[in-house]
C-alpha cells in the first residue's frame, strides 16, 4: 500500500484539517462537508462549510448522529450546482454514499469523497444520555482501538480502513497515525483522488508498510469477531418463528428505515396504504388462529426491508442506534446482508459495480432453477 505522508506538528486532527484547507485552496473546492458538535453541545451534526469554519469541525466524532451519506444525498440529490464539495466521513458512510449514487440519490461528480480509518463509533443513545462520559470512552477506544467500548456493529466491521485486502472506494482515504513519527497518510483510490493529492503536493507514493501490517492484524481480528457474531446471531434469524421472536418487540415505528442511508424511498411501501386492508380481512385473518398481532405488518416490514436493501447494506448501524426497543437490527441485517451480497457476489459501495437488480446475468442464480 502506498500513499502521501504528512508529518503533523500538533496531532493528526490538525494535520487532516490543514490537508482539507490545502485541498480547498489548491484543488479549487468550494465547500467542506464535515461533522460538527451542535450549538448546545449535546450531539453532532453535519455542516456544509467554508474553510474559515474548519477549526470547529470534529474530524472523527464519537457518534454517527446522521449517516454522512444521507447528508451528502440531501445536498446533491436534486438539481445541479457548480459548487465543488469535499466530504470527510467514515468508510461505511462513504460506501453508503457510493451506493446511493448508483441509485441516483446522490451525485458524486462534484464531490471529493474522503474516508478515514475508523476506530468505530459509540452508541448514539449512550452519548445523548451522558456526552462527557462517552467522549472519554471514545478517546480511549480510538487511541487503543479498544473494541469493548464501541458499538457491537462496529466490533464486527471489517471494512473500517483501506488496504489491499479491504478496499474502500472513497476518492481519498486518510490513514490514521500508526507510524512511530505519527505521520498521517493519504491514499488515493481514484484518478480524482490522485489529482487532488498531486495538487496539494502529497502525490508522492511512499510505502505504508507498518501501518498496513497493523491494520491487517486488526482486520483479521474483526473478521474473526464477525464470524463469531454470525454464529451467535444465526439462531435469531433462521426460520420465520425465530425471526418473529427476534422482531417480536418491534413496534413498527420504522425509525430503522428512516435513518438507514440506503433506504432511500420517499414513502416506504410498508408504511403506505398498500399494506392496509379492509376490516373484514383483518377479522378473517384473526379467525384463522383465534387471535393475531395487530397490525400484522411488523414482521413483513422487517423481512421486506431486508429483501429491499440488504444487497446495499453497509452495516453502518444507524438503525440499531435509533431503535427504541433495543433490537439488534444492524447486527442481524448486516449478517443477512452478507448472504445476499454473496449470492450476487456484490460489494456495496464498490464503484462501477451495478446493483444486482439492474443487471441480467444469464448464469446467475442457477441453483434456484428447477
Amino acid at each position: 500500500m502506498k500513499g502521501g505522508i504528512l508529518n503533523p506538528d500538533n496531532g493528526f486532527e490538525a494535520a487532516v484539517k490543514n490537508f482539507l484547507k490545502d485541498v480547498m485552496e489548491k484543488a479549487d473546492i468550494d465547500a467542506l462537508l464535515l461533522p460538527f458538535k451542535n450549538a448546545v453541545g449535546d450531539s453532532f451534526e453535519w455542516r456544509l462549510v467554508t474553510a474559515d469554519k474548519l477549526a470547529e469541525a470534529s474530524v472523527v466524532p464519537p457518534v454517527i448522529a446522521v449517516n454522512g451519506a444521507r447528508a451528502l444525498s440531501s445536498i446533491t440529490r436534486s438539481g445541479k450546482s457548480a459548487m465543488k464539495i469535499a466530504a470527510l466521513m467514515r468508510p461505511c458512510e462513504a460506501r453508503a454514499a457510493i451506493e446511493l449514487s448508483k441509485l441516483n440519490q446522490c451525485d458524486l461528480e462534484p464531490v471529493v469523497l474522503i474516508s478515514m480509518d475508523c476506530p468505530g463509533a459509540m452508541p448514539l443513545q449512550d452519548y445523548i444520555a451522558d456526552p462527557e462520559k462517552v467522549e472519554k470512552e471514545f478517546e480511549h477506544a480510538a487511541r487503543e482501538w479498544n473494541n469493548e467500548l464501541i458499538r457491537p456493529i462496529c466490533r464486527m466491521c471489517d471494512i473500517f480502513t483501506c488496504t489491499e485486502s479491504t478496499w474502500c472506494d472513497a476518492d481519498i482515504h486518510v490513514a490514521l497515525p500508526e507510524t512511530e513519527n505519527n505521520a498521517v497518510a493519504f491514499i488515493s483510490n481514484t484518478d480524482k483522488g490522485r489529482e487532488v493529492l498531486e495538487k496539494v503536493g502529497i502525490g508522492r507514493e511512499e510505502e505504508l508498510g507498518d501501518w498496513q501490517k497493523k491494520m491487517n492484524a486488526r482486520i483479521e481480528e474483526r473478521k474473526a469477531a464477525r464470524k463469531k457474531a454470525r454464529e451467535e446471531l444465526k439462531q435469531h434469524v433462521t426460520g420465520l418463528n425465530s425471526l418473529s421472536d427476534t422482531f417480536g418487540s418491534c413496534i413498527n415505528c420504522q425509525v430503522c428505515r428512516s435513518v438507514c442511508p440506503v433506504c432511500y424511498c420517499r414513502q416506504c411501501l410498508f408504511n403506505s396504504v398498500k399494506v392496509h386492508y379492509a376490516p373484514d380481512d383483518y377479522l378473517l385473518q384473526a379467525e384463522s388462529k383465534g387471535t393475531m398481532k395487530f397490525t400484522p405488518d411488523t414482521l413483513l416490514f422487517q423481512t421486506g426491508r431486508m429483501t429491499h436493501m440488504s444487497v446495499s447494506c453497509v452495516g453502518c448501524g444507524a438503525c440499531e442506534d435509533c431503535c427504541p426497543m433495543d433490537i439488534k437490527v444492524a447486527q442481524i441485517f448486516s449478517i443477512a446482508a452478507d448472504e445476499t451480497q454473496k449470492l450476487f457476489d456484490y460489494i456495496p459501495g464498490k464503484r462501477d459495480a451495478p446493483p444486482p437488480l439492474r443487471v441480467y446475468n444469464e448464469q446467475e442464480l442457477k441453483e434456484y432453477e428447477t
Partner: protein
Amino acid sequence: MKGKIGVFICECGPNIAEKVDVDKIVDEAAALPGVAFVAKHKLLCSEDGKKFLKEQIEEHGLTRLVIAACSPKAHESTFMKVCEEAKCNSHLFQMANIREHCAWIVENKEAATEKAIRYVKAAWRRVGYHEPLAKKEIAVNPDVLVIGGGITGIEASLLLAHADRKVYLIEKSDALGGKVNEFEKIFKNMENTADMLAGKISDVEKNSAIEVFTNSSIEEVVGFLGNFTVTVNKKGERTEIRTGTIVVATGYDSFDPLKAPKYGYGKVDNIYTGREFEVLNKSGKIVGKDGKTPQSVAIINCVGREEMGYCSGVCCLSSIKFARYIKEKLPETEVVNFYREMTLPDKGYQKFFEDTQEKGVNFIRVKSVTVDNSDKGPMITWQNDNGDEHRNVDMVILSAAMTAVNDAETIADMLKISRDETGFFLEEHQKLAPVSTATEGVFIAGCAQGPKNIKESLVQAGAVAGRILSLLIPGKKLEPEVRTSYISEAYCIGCRMCLEVCNYGAICFDALKHVSVVNEIICRGCGNCVGSCPSGAVQTKQFKDIQIHQEVVEVLR
C-alpha cells in the same frame, strides 16, 4: 363488495363435472357477499353457453363476473368478448382455472372440490377489487422512415412506396446502393451487380412517394409506434420528419485486419481486404501495388472470426467469388484458399464450391494461418495436422468478418433498441421475430440485424415491409394495451430503477419533477418496473398489489 357479482361454473362436459362437485361450488359461491347470481353450465364456451352467459348478465344486471372453467389461455378472450356484448366491462371479470389446476390433476374428488372452491373464492374476492378499464385508440401516421440506403433499405422503400406509403430514405453517404456498389458480381451466379442495382436505384428515383436524404444522418428520435418525430441532419440543415415506423437498415462494417496483426495487414505488401480487392477487381485490372500481375494469390478466410466470436456465414462464398474473379481475369494465376470450416449453407453453394475447385482453385483447410514479409513477397505460414507449412505468394486477400457499424451504439440509444453481444441490433425474438425489435415500431433489416448475404438481406427487407404493412393500416387506429403500469408522482423518488428494467423504453425520467413517468401507449404491462420499485410507487392495472393480495389471501385461507 362493490356491484352485483355473477359466478358461473363450467362443467366442461365430464372434464370438470366428474372430478369436482360442481353443485358444492354453486352453494358455496351463492353464500358469498355481493354475489347476485350463481349458475353452472355444461359447456360455457359453446355457442349455447355464451348465449346463456350473455342473457344472465343482462337479466340480473351483473356488473362483475367470475367464471370457473378452463385455463384463461383457452377461453379468457372468449368470455371477455361476451362481457363486452353484454355491456359489462370486460376487465371486471376474473377467471378461475378449475380444470387444468383442479379437475385434471387432483385425484381425490373432495380435495379437487376444496381446491376449486378456494379458486372460485379467490377470483370472487379479486374481482371485487378490479377496476373498469376503457379501450384506448390512437391515430397513427402510416409513413415510414428508412435509415440506410443500401440494397436492403432500397428494397424495403420500394415495396412500401408501392403500397402507397410515404417513405423517407436516409443515407449517410452521397449515393444510394451501399456496399453492393463495390461489387462487380454477386455469388453464386456471378451475375453483374450493376444491372440489378442500377434498376432498383432508378426505381427509387422515379418513385415520387420516396423522399431520399443523402449525406444525412438522424439526430434525435422522440415518440412511439405510429407517432415518431425524427430529426434528420443533412449537412447541418435540420428537418423534422413525422413518421409511424422506423426501419434500421444501416448494414455492416468489415472487421479491421489491423486488429489481428498475425495476418500482416499494413506491414506486408500486396495484401488487400476483401472490400479493397472488390474495388481493385472492379477497376478491371488485378495488379499488385507494384503494378505487376500476381502469379499466385492467397485468399484467407475467417479473418476476425475468433476476435468477433461468430461466423459471418458469407466470407467463404465471397472468397470463392474472389477466386472466380481471378480465374476469369487471370486464368494462369494460381489461387490458394486457406479456410477453417467451409461454410456453404443453402442448397446452391456446394455446387458453386465444387465448380470453383474444378477451375483449379486450391482449397486448403488449416487450423491457423499467418502472413509475414519475406524477400520473395508475402509469406503464408499455416498449421494443420501435419504441422507448419510455408509458401510465398504475390498477393494476399483477407476475407474479413462482417461487424456491426461503428455508430451502432448511437443509433441504438436514439431508438431505444438493444444490441446483442456481437454488437448487431437485437431482434424482438431470435426465432419468431427477426426484423422487429423490443421497441414497437422500430424494425431492423439486412446486415444491421446480423451478417448475411444479399438474398437474405432482401428477404428481410421484404419482411420489414410486410410487418409494417400489416401493422399500420392507414385510417385504422391502434389499440394499445390497457393493462399498463403507472407511477405515483408523490411516492416516486426518482431512482430510475424502473427505467433500467423496462424492455420497451416505455418509461422516461421527468428531471424537473425528479420522477419517472410511464408512457402508457408504449407500455405492455409486463410488470418489470413494479418488481423493481422498492417503494411500490409503480403499479400495473389489473395486477395491483391489492388485487393480487386479495386473491392470495383467499386461496391460502
